[in-house]
């Protein structure tokens, strides 16, 4: 599903990571500053590795030797950021529809309905992002990413900006997403408890290096 073998120098910080996973949810675990976000940005194509390869679903999207770097907009990934990043000038319905329009996909009312029910965002459709709570924003961001029909979903600390109560509100949706949406995910977190609930495989990062890789038991 996902194969990563990259090196990247970012100022003083050097990131060097290699792993291959067929897991449904790859948990990327590490303290802040371990290089998790940089690694996810490279998978998304927002950062270009200095050396190495990234393969998503059999397609090589980065290969420094062959000079391949598929731009972000052609990678067909979904990315849920910690800060949601909904488009402030569009309402919820328009935000949700953005990826479909950009990828020129035919409307799929059945999928649309399924995602909206899965995330419970039907009642928010006409609202602007400024009028949503943090948890609602994050659910809309999830829906927006899913509706662009990605082959891989990247979630970078999607609960990081929420308080404990809100986290507990969103977690069940993520579990449902994992079990029902059928999209492989890379889930970034510094919270072991969160990953134990969600991930099927763990990549542990420390100071820009992979220190362990395996099932969720590596978290203990």
């Amino acid at each position, binding site marked *: 599903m996902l194969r990563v073998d990259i090196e990247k120098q970012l100022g003083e910080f050097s990131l060097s990571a290699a792993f291959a996973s067929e897991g449904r949810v790859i948990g990327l675990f590490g303290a802040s500053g371990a290089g998790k976000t940089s690694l996810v940005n490279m998978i998304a194509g927002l950062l270009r590795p200095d050396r190495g390869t990234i393969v998503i679903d059999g397609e090589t999207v980065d290969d420094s030797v062959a000079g391949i770097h598929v731009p*972000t*907009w052609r990678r067909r*990934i979904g*990315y849920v950021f910690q800060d949601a990043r909904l*488009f*402030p*000038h569009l309402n919820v319905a328009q935000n949700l529809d*953005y990826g479909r329009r*950009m990828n020129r996909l035919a409307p799929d009312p059945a999928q649309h309905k399924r995602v909206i029910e899965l995330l419970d965002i039907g009642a928010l459709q006409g609202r602007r992002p400024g009028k949503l709570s943090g948890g609602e924003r994050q659910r809309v961001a999830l829906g927006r990413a899913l509706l662009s029909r990605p082959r891989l979903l990247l979630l970078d600390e999607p609960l990081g900006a929420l308080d404990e109560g809100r986290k507990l509100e969103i977690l069940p949706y993520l579990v449902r997403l994992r079990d029902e949406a059928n999209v492989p995910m890379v889930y970034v977190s510094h919270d072991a408890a969160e990953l134990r609930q969600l991930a099927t495989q763990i990549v542990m990062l420390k100071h820009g290096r992979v220190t362990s890789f395996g099932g969720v038991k590596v978290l203990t």
Partner: protein
Amino acid sequence: MLDISPAEWTAILLSLRVAVIATLVATPFGIALAWLLARREFWGKSVLDALVHLPLVLPPVVTGYLLLLTFGRRGLVGGFLADHLGIVFAFRWTGAALACGLMAFPLLVRPMRLSIEAIDRRLEQAAETLGATPFKVFFTVTLPLALPGVLAGMVLGFAKAIGEFGATITFVSNIPGETQTISSAIYSLIQTPDGDAAAGRLVIVSIVLALGALIAAEWFARRATARLHGN
């Protein structure tokens, strides 16, 4: 109310036409340049930035004279345009529009640039992850979010263009009905005995137009903040 004579109306309408055309033609260039200065790093950026601001600090008579040298009938560009495309700037209202557009350009670009700089680049990245090419990102995210700034720039540019005097009179002279704008009409009137009343009326029109533009620009700036916060 003001008892505006037909000759004064001619100057007012010409000023409006010159300023509208100057603003509309300058806007696409202004947006492109604002984006370039806000979002790209390239060699010679500071030189380009200085060039854009040059009309603001150069004596207007110098700008007008340079326009005459370049776009006059015997000028390098002006001669070519007149011979091959039949476009003449010298001593025509089109020349007035060119001079006004150039003089207004720095004021037009600035709010556009500031509003593009204020847009969170991470929103543009989010659009890319959703499959938008850089071209689509610009038209679906950057430009809509910068729209109030773009409009504010247009209004300020328009206000500057409608009052421009020095470069215009140097380049296209002061011909009633062809190149005599409000400013050059006031200039003529205050040199004429008994012209005070007419000059006074045009002065009031100028003040009303300028104030209106400033209020409109301020209103657009407020809209920009509301837009960026998604309310």
